[in-house]
């Protein structure tokens, strides 16, 4: 079945440093989505990427979808303490309502 792998598992950065998390799918995706889960909270939808090679930005966050639609990345520029949480990618296949989540990257930011 479809699998979505995400690295790294943890990242501990100094406030102001950049952060990147990477996501790879075993199959081609129709779209990839990113979610943020604050400690003790529930996942919150950030963005969806649909097109091959697509790049989207939300303030300091940059999301990319690979040309083959099997990989994606999230880059945060100049992290802040408010960025703390776990970032999940989630992939959806062409003929499926199901969203398969990666294992997540937990971001810790030292003030």
């Amino acid at each position, binding site marked *: 079945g479809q699998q979505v792998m995400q690295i790294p598992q943890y990242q501990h950065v100094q406030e102001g440093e950049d952060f990147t998390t990477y996501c790879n799918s075993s199959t081609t995706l*129709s779209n990839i989505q990113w979610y943020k889960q604050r400690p003790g909270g*529930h*996942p919150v*939808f950030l963005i*969806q990427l649909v097109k091959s090679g697509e790049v989207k930005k939300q303030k300091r966050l940059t999301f990319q979808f690979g040309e083959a639609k099997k990989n994606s990345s999230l880059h945060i520029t100049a992290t802040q303490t408010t960025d703390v949480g776990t970032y*999940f990618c989630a992939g959806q296949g062409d003929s499926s*309502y199901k969203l398969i*989540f*990666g294992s*997540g990257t937990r971001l810790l930011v030292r003030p």
Partner: protein
Amino acid sequence: SQTIHQWPATLVQPVGSPLSLECTVEGTSNPNLYWYRQAAGRGLQLLFYSVGIGQISSEVPQNLSASRPQDRQFILSSKKLLLSDSGFYLCAWSVLYYGYTFGSGTRLTVV
């Protein structure tokens, strides 16, 4: 606007007891509904999804079941809980091929 309600927020149940978790969605019709489980510090595992009343797809064989008695109501049940059923249970809804909205979750501890 659409809202999703999930309750209870926390639950402590003895091994062998039954379980019923309820999720309701407001402000949308015929949503896709999902139950996910998250173990502590881990990713999200899809348990069940439903694309319509009475239509349930199971992803993981286990002693849990789901039902959708009404368009915007999704129920997760068990006849006899196991210790391994402990976790953070999340209900979510979506429209076709777009981002999921998660409920606030139920933290279940089986003792």
